[in-house]
């Protein structure tokens, strides 16, 4: 049985797809057979970030409508042979998903994989509900600013009331907080909420803190999940995050302002 993890946030543009790609890739790097499912029907992005947009033939909606089988729709990653993605449809909208179809596809994937990462669309409408409904765990991606925190709080409410686990009275979804675009310098200046502030408001377990980094944009543009850029701070932070997700105890890094060395001060960093 695979563990189903939804990556969600409520608010758009906080880094759900970037995090789905990085965490999915990270789990595969650790030897777990992983599939990342793009639930953002109509705004297909995951395949771009994963760098396989030219290889999309069939998609998630085709599988749900029995127009293709999973084997035809899933794309195996070129870098890691235990990593697959199931792309979203670009031409349909989010109403193309239905609960029965999603359940059937997830059950089928569940037999074969260790982890199923569901990349949720933004918002709280049917598409996002569909992505979180069957989840065992949830990674709530939040930026350190008030509107993102508020939306995450809303999604946490949905997780505890609208999911399958909630409806069937099973133990609740395990909730993790992933703080992205964290900039310690701006936190010190009071321009951004601190880890403590966000933790205080949302009161769920902190899974990771990803620093704001140029590496993320570079990685997205080149179709390379940022976790593979092991030199970058963001890549290392995602590696730590994945380690915590599979139960390892790793200290948090990149939380405080980095002291600039002599060379950096002279040449700029």
């Amino acid at each position, binding site marked *: 049985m695979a563990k189903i993890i939804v990556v969600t946030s409520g608010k758009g543009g906080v880094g759900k797809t970037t995090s789905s790609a990085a965490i999915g890739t990270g789990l595969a790097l650790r030897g777990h057979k992983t599939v990342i499912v793009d639930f953002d029907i109509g705004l297909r992005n995951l395949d771009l970030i994963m760098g396989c947009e030219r290889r999309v033939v069939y998609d998630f909606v085709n599988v749900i409508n029995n127009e293709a089988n999973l084997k035809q729709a899933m794309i195996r990653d070129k870098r890691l042979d235990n990593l697959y993605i199931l792309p979203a449809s670009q031409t349909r909208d989010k109403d193309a998903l*239905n*609960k029965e179809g999603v359940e059937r596809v997830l059950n089928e994937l569940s037999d074969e994989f260790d982890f199923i990462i569901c990349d949720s669309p933004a918002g*709280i409408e049917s598409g996002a509900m569909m992505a979180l409904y069957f989840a065992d765990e949830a990674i709530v991606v939040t930026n350190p600013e008030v509107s993102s925190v508020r939306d995450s*709080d*809303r999604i*946490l*409410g949905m997780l505890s*009331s609208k999911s399958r686990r909630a409806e069937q009275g099973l133990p609740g979804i395990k909730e993790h907080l992933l703080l992205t675009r964290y900039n310690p310098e701006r936190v010190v200046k009071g321009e951004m909420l601190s880890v403590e502030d966000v933790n205080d*408001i949302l009161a769920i377990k902190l899974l990771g803190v990803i620093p704001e980094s140029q590496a993320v944009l570079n990685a997205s543009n080149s179709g390379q999940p940022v976790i593979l850029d092991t030199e970058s701070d963001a890549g290392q932070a995602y590696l730590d995050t994945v380690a915590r997700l599979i139960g390892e105890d790793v200290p948090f890094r990149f939380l405080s302002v980095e002291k600039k060395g002599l060379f950096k001060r002279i040449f700029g960093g």
Partner: protein
Amino acid sequence: MSDHSFELKGSLFPLSVLYCQDFSVAALQAQLQQKLAQAPGFFHQAPVVINVENAKQIPDFIAIKQLFVELQLVLVGVCGANAELKKVAQQAGLAALQLSKNNGKTPEAAAKPVAEPAPIAPAAAVVTAVVENKLIEQNIRSGQQIYVKGADLIIKGTVGAGAEVIADGNIHIYGSLRGKAIAGAGGDSSKKIYCYNMQAELISIAGNYWLSESLQGEFWGKSACISLQDGQLVLAELF
């Protein structure tokens, strides 16, 4: 998503249960009228179940039903009925409800072993209003709304910004209050709001409200007790 426009779901409701031995219409009428006179309005159109466990005769359910209509009560059904009574009740269009094991004992049955009292006088007809306070042991997130009718609301957790907690009774929050809290929603101005960390968007007691702007000051971010005195909201220390 499944279709929510038509659903049949089980739910639990507080219901008043009438314990009685003499089910003659005249006796019932006298005792009920006496009870209702004590609190007119409280039982107005209240749904009632009658416990027929200790019935001495087979009650005339149709006449009792008529009596309830006259007294502006809603007779829902019977409980504690044996097979024979169940049949009669069902023929009169009443629901035969199952007694749960823990409240299966009527006040009389519980009292019996102590002493066999002399003729059970007016006190025999006890209308027990089952009012259960609501306890929630988790955080109330943005967008969630909790309403408790006719009772207190106790929350072991935080009420997030954009969440609303409403009760006809008092509200106790063992965490931060960042959303809205409305106590005494039914108009009872004696109700209070207690919280461990007050950063509310709105606080209201019996329709008198304050927005967060008016709440800034001494008690912001601290524990507080909010009550209504002479039509004015008052903030005070919790300890």
